[in-house]
């Protein structure tokens, strides 16, 4: 297990190294003079010189990369406009994104898992068909559009929930819940659909195994066979999917925060993009990739713990 953990850690380091190289190079994709692209057409010579200095664009590219890495590790990557370190801003905005992503995960689990379970147990029945249809429909609806419809229904028509904005959990718990219900639902619905499909197909596969037939032949109750024998084994695959879903949630938050005007990391990156604040964009990309890799590392370790065969691959 220790060797496996070590291997996965190395893998994570690699992925993060490549991600930082990629996000560093991203800026150099810009056509022409990077500083001028950032400053815009109207920028004065002075502003452009300042940008050039801040990003150290006058140095050779390999040296620029070393400076970039140094800033990254010391947490000194500065936003071009906010005069604060990018990671400071991310940490300040993180509770918003984390609330919505976790809310989305809860929605995905609450809807997707039972739906997939029922569909698999009643394979071929009308429940199964409706479940499969809903799941296919769920992955086809654009999240932002779903969110806008939710706002129209629950905020504008029924006036049950606020149409946007975020309340911190430390300020008002009820307000926090109310502010993340709609964003979590619109974000989690797609993942619920994915999870339902996955749960269904995994469980169907497991139910075909010989040991299930044996368990049934022993005269065990069907619910016991399902919960103790089938679900346990299907669980392994489902855990991995949850890791994957978490990554999708982080990405989906970009759009959802825009729809519900939530001041999170996603909105921050969209704003940074429109202001060409590249250090912020780079910082967010690296941060999210780190979060994603960390979650997947945990999932992988959990997976190896549940199923020892994995460790020896």
């Amino acid at each position, binding site marked *: 297990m220790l060797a496996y953990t070590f291997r996965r850690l190395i*893998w994570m380091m*690699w*992925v*993060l*190294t*490549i*991600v930082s190289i*990629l*996000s560093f190079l*991203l*800026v150099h*994709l*810009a*056509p022409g003079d990077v500083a001028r*692209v950032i400053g815009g057409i109207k920028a004065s010579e002075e502003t452009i010189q300042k940008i050039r200095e801040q990003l150290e664009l006058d140095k050779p590219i390999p040296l620029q990369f070393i400076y970039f890495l140094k800033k990254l590790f010391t947490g000194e990557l500065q936003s071009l406009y906010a005069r604060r370190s990018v990671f400071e801003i991310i940490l300040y905005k993180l509770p918003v994104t984390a609330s919505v992503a976790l809310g989305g995960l809860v929605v995905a689990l609450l809807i997707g898992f039972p739906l997939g379970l029922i569909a698999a147990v009643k394979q071929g029945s009308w429940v199964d068909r409706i479940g499969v249809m809903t799941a*296919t*429909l769920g*992955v*086809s*609806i*654009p*999240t*932002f*559009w779903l969110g*806008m*419809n939710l*706002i*129209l229904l629950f905020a*504008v028509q029924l006036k049950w929930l606020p149409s946007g904005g975020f309340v911190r959990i430390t300020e008002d718990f009820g307000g926090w819940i109310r502010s993340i219900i709609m964003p979590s639902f619109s974000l989690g619905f797609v993942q619920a659909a*994915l999870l339902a*499909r*996955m749960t269904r*197909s*995994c469980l169907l*596969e497991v139910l075909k195994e010989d040991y299930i037939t044996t368990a049934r032949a022993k005269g065990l109750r069907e619910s016991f066979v399902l919960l103790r024998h089938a679900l346990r084994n299907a669980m392994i695959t489902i855990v991995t*999917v949850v890791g994957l879903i978490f*990554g*999708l949630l*982080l*990405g*989906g938050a*970009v*759009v959802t925060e*825009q729809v519900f005007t939530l001041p999170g990391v996603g909105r921050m*990156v*969209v704003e940074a*993009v*429109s202001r*060409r604040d*590249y250090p912020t*964009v780079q910082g*967010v*990309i690296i941060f*999210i*990739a780190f979060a*994603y*890799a960390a979650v*997947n590392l945990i999932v992988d370790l959990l997976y190896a713990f549940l199923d020892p065969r994995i460790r020896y691959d």
Partner: protein
Amino acid sequence: MKLTKNLIFRNRSIQIGGAITLFMILLALFAPLIAPYPPIGMNIPSMLKSPSADHLFGTDEFGRDVLSRVIFGARISLRVGLSVAITTGILGIGVGLFAGYFRRLDNPIMRFLDAMMAIPSLLLALAIVSIVGPSEGTAVAALTITYTPRTARVIRGAVLSIKEQYYVESATALGAGTLRIMIQHILVNCIGPVIVQQSFIFAYAVLAEAMLSFLGVGPPPPAPSWGNIISEARGSMRIAPWIMFFPGIAISITVLGINMLGDGLRDVLDPKSRVQGR
């Protein structure tokens, strides 16, 4: 081959999904003939009219007919979707073949793809478009870069398993060259998974283009795309919800159709992968 053909045409989700996809493609191709009004240009007297017999989907804040804009919007959305499906297909096959066939290349290539997949696809596309500047071409390029790793992984997996087959071994024994084996024996046999994967990427790309347009970095207005119609309609959402409602329906139906087509094709062409979802 004939058996596969029969299976394809008898599969219910291929029938329905294929019909929807074909319908949308025809709509896009013949938009100027079908749309009742021009998609751009102001018409102030008929501003913000709710759906009626004259304007089935109502009009927007410039008095433009929403139905016509949705019909024309199919052009950009499907063009981007199809282009991305084709380009990621070609690139993904190339990268996947190399990674799967040459053992030494496998590890570095896969680590690189892992890293790319650790960045949420929308974020990566957003970053690329922001730097190069929004246009239809950039959207296609950004989504291609974002989705190629997925196709490459699928191909690599298929290549790895096909490589071990006896017929590949016997071809090698008969002295067939690397290129010949790669193309004639391996590529031909992983065409099924590729078609399936590309149909899903087509669906993703249509959704992603809508999201980029919604965030204001897609193909720029006034040319309508489903995403930018919704994005523009956000401000008047409370007084004129129909403007954002219909393009959303169009996206959902299209993506649903393509997804159903993909599901059906997977059942016929690649039954083994069903377990993994996608």
